[in-house]
């Protein structure tokens, strides 16, 4: 069936099986940044923003996205024009294998758009649905703090 929605700011219409997963619809549209880790909504590798909120796209049926706004990692920034959050993840050493990274960055992005000065608990809560097996989360937390400071325009002693 035909499905019309907004994808990274652009109107999109595509054909999808009514029982298809949103993550597969996105990947078939050529956006490979959204990953598939478990299929049960636990790992968060498939997280995208729907109307600004992080959701597991492996559990969203394609027709359910009709009329909504989806943002994937490709909509946040590019290698030549990365978003500050992406740059802070890189600088903090928060990217190892990178498989969890798109979902993790989108969760952080959604948090910082709503809560520019998050507490430790708010960061932990916002990212609790994104599993990472490589980093142990330590540098991810540092990256989100650094990104928050940078987006607020805080002046720091250290970069």
């Amino acid at each position, binding site marked *: 069936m035909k499905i019309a929605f907004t994808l990274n700011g652009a109107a999109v219409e595509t054909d999808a099986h009514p029982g298809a997963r949103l993550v*597969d619809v996105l990947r078939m549209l050529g956006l490979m940044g959204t990953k598939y880790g478990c299929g049960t909504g636990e790992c968060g590798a498939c997280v995208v923003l729907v109307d600004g909120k992080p959701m*597991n796209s492996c559990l969203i049926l394609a027709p359910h996205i009709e009329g909504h706004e989806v943002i994937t990692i490709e909509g946040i920034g590019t290698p030549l024009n990365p978003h500050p959050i992406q740059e802070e993840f890189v600088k903090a050493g928060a990217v190892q294998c990178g498989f969890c990274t798109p979902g993790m960055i989108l969760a952080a992005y959604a948090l910082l758009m709503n809560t520019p000065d998050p507490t430790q608990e708010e960061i932990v809560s916002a990212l609790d649905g994104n599993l990472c097996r490589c980093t142990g989360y330590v540098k991810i937390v540092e990256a989100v703090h650094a990104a928050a400071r940078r987006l607020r325009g805080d002046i720091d002693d250290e970069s």
Partner: protein
Amino acid sequence: MAHLLPHVTEFLVPSSLDEARSLLETLPETTMILGGGVSLGMIPRKRVTHVLSISALGLDYINIDGDDLRIGAATTLDSLEDTLTSDGRSGLGAITESIKRTATTPLRNRITVGGILAGVGPWADLPVALLTYETTVIIDGARSVTLDSVMEKGPRHVIGNHSILTEIRVKLPSKAFSTFVKVGRNATDLAISSVAVNNRCDKKTIIAAVGGIVPRPVKLFQTSVNDVRQARDDGASPRFMNHINDVVLRRDHRASDEYRIHLTKRLLMDSLEHVLNGGKA
């Protein structure tokens, strides 16, 4: 990966309850009523041929009407949490805490209140808290049943195959302290045991409910505050704690029966202590 529902041929989005109900009369029994769809992650439903979404039925609302809190079935947990937190009234601690402890952020952005109740199982946290309040469930916008009866008899049985759970109604207490605690293997695990306790200061009663160790959340007991205070002061094991021994434990391979009963008793005692102190540690 393969389709979530490979045999689905129709995805229906009715825009009125009447339309939804008449569709349900004619659709096959392989029809799934879709809230947030999160349960598909735990219970694969490959046989589903038709999906009926509640997203356009206008059930995404939270209204406070006097002392009636009315929550539309399509309300997501995160929006319920936001509303209750910004509303700021006290006495709903167990409800907000049970939402905070449910699953994870991306899942809470999709899990609907109707979905939790209609598809309730031992993993459900919110109903444990709701059982300690006077909570009713509205079906098809008209029929009202108590949450207790939904949990006791099972949602399928109470709601029926051609009806839709449309609203949850909670009578707001004038004064209460309530708490919700949950223990799993790690911080985001499904509950091994969860306990809600509500000190209804306005009625001088304490109500307790349990989840995790039972197939569906159950109310454990309702007793007077004085009973609880007395038992605490006596230091003896109170009669009302025996209700735990009466529950039918579900099988859970993560922990032994003996431990789960002990854990539940401990969580109950901790919670009772907490609410007796007016919610202070």
